[in-house]
């Protein structure tokens, strides 16, 4: 009897907490569907009296949301592809190949994990200005293309690749590149999915760096554009919520499909401590 009450208590509190956590996200969708001005009433309406998609239409037709969406997609996709290639190669090299100074370089990289990225932003802006990359996709992408965390993630995973497998391929006369392409890469697929979704979500959601480096309006990514729109249209709450939905939905959907891989990345990343 006491056990039953406990089961109800535990599951009941979890249900309540889960509802509280999801509520802001669900309400965001609900407000996005309300007609203009409907959300500014008391008591706050939970559901639209009459659902409309007009804000989504206005965002894309008048506020260049399509352009911002495309910018976000280009930046996040190219950062992800570059990060996958570069970190896979480097992570494998640090795990399985030899080169002068390998262990020293790795120790320096790990120490670098302590440095917050914001420390680099001011000189980085100057550097990109000299290179002519301010307000370009490259300026938003290149700083996150290769990462210490990415190398670390791949290296930990690649350490488990059996040496015999690589030696057998070498005896067969395969070049190092060929071994990487046809033996190593297929084995790294699970960790690369993890790394890929990490980089995609991080660059899609990133705010401070794109705010600094993408100085022109038509280069802005969704979060930067949304923050700008919110300053101009303070009153237009329903349209802002529609913009928020457009921004959040792709990453939330991606996470739901690949969450197993994403959560594993968090756990692997936390071992380093």
């Amino acid at each position, binding site marked *: 009897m006491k056990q039953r009450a406990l089961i109800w208590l535990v599951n009941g509190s979890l249900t309540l907490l889960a509802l509280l956590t999801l509520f802001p996200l669900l309400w965001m969708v609900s407000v996005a569907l309300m007609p203009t001005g409907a959300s500014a009433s008391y008591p706050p309406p939970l559901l639209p009296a009459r659902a409309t998609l007009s804000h989504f239409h206005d965002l894309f037709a008048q506020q260049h949301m399509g352009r911002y969406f495309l910018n976000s997609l280009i930046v996040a996709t190219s950062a992800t592809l570059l990060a996958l290639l570069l970190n896979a190669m480097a992570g494998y090299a640090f795990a399985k*190949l030899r080169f002068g100074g390998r262990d020293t370089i790795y120790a320096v990289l790990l120490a670098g994990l302590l440095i917050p990225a914001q420390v680099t932003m001011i000189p980085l802006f100057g550097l990109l200005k000299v290179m002519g990359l301010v307000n370009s996709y490259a300026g938003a992408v290149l700083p996150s293309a290769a990462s210490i965390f990415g190398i670390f993630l791949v290296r930990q995973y690649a350490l488990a690749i059996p040496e015999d497998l690589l030696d057998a391929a070498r005896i067969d006369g395969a070049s190092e590149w060929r071994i990487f392409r046809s033996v190593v890469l297929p084995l790294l697929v699970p960790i690369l999915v993890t790394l890929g979704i990490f980089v995609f979500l991080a660059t899609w959601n990133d705010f*401070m760096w794109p705010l600094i480096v993408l100085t022109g309006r038509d280069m802005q990514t969704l979060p930067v554009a949304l923050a700008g729109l919110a300053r101009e249209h303070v009153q237009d709450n329903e349209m802002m919520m529609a913009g928020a939905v457009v921004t959040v939905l792709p990453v*939330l959907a991606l996470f739901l499909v690949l969450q197993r891989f994403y959560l594993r990345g968090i756990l692997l990343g936390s071992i380093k401590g």
Partner: protein
Amino acid sequence: MSRRPDKQGFSQAQSGWPFAAPALLLIGVFFLLPVIGALLLSFTDFDLYALADISNLRLVGLHNYQTLLITPMFWKALGNTTVFVILGVPLSLIASLGTALLVNSRLTRFKGFFRTALFAPVVTTLVAVALNWRYMLHTRYGLINYLLTHLGLPAIDWLGDPHWSMPAIVLLAVWKNFGYNMIILLAALQNIPEDLYEAARLEGAGAWHCLRRVTLPLLVPTLTLVSILTVSGYFQLFAEPYVMTQGGPLQSTVSVLYFMFEQGFKWWNLGFASAVAFVLFALILVLTMLQMRLARRLGEV
């Protein structure tokens, strides 16, 4: 047994370079070089004039750091950020630990669903959810004040009252972030062997006693880790005040990074802003080491 490396042996011994070089080059140019650059810049008066013509650049030694110490706005920003950390980190850790314990409980059904639901805010875009929270915290139409007045409490001018603006930002940050540490703690809980609980139960320990004597002591290393990650993450507060309050009201939500951003990219005092960045970095580093030392002492007792 030293062997002279033949040609084959040499290429074998350096075969990793072509693989590692592209990533190392990018990290070197876009991360390590700027870190050194920031340190050097912090000893100069790099500003708009120097940005236009580099010959205007002058070395000023520690002048930026000295100015920083007598700039009231810097102290204000540091104070605001400290309030955010002191309120936010414990709240966030309690939420993470509480939900992790609940999800991990043997009595819990649908563990996967609860884990996903509680984690969902972590992957959302901060700017987007901050706009939503700005609406929920609205003084007149906000849902939170609606609930408060229904409970017989006074309505709060969350984003307009300098006493409440930082707590409001804490609410958003805790909601957005607690799921991350929950996942790490959940994994640590699942690693605690079941026999330990059984042994404790055989000795007549109740649920509370098990938590105090078995679970929490074994979680100390993980709690240290998540606390270090959370403190250093919370010191990097920026986007929340940028979107929700623009640093206001009465500069009550200007954080150290917000101050750095304004100095650097609004007023173009890039040398001065670099000094701000370095002070923040040093602060985070010192706090990380303090927490590690504290945890080691806890582990010895």
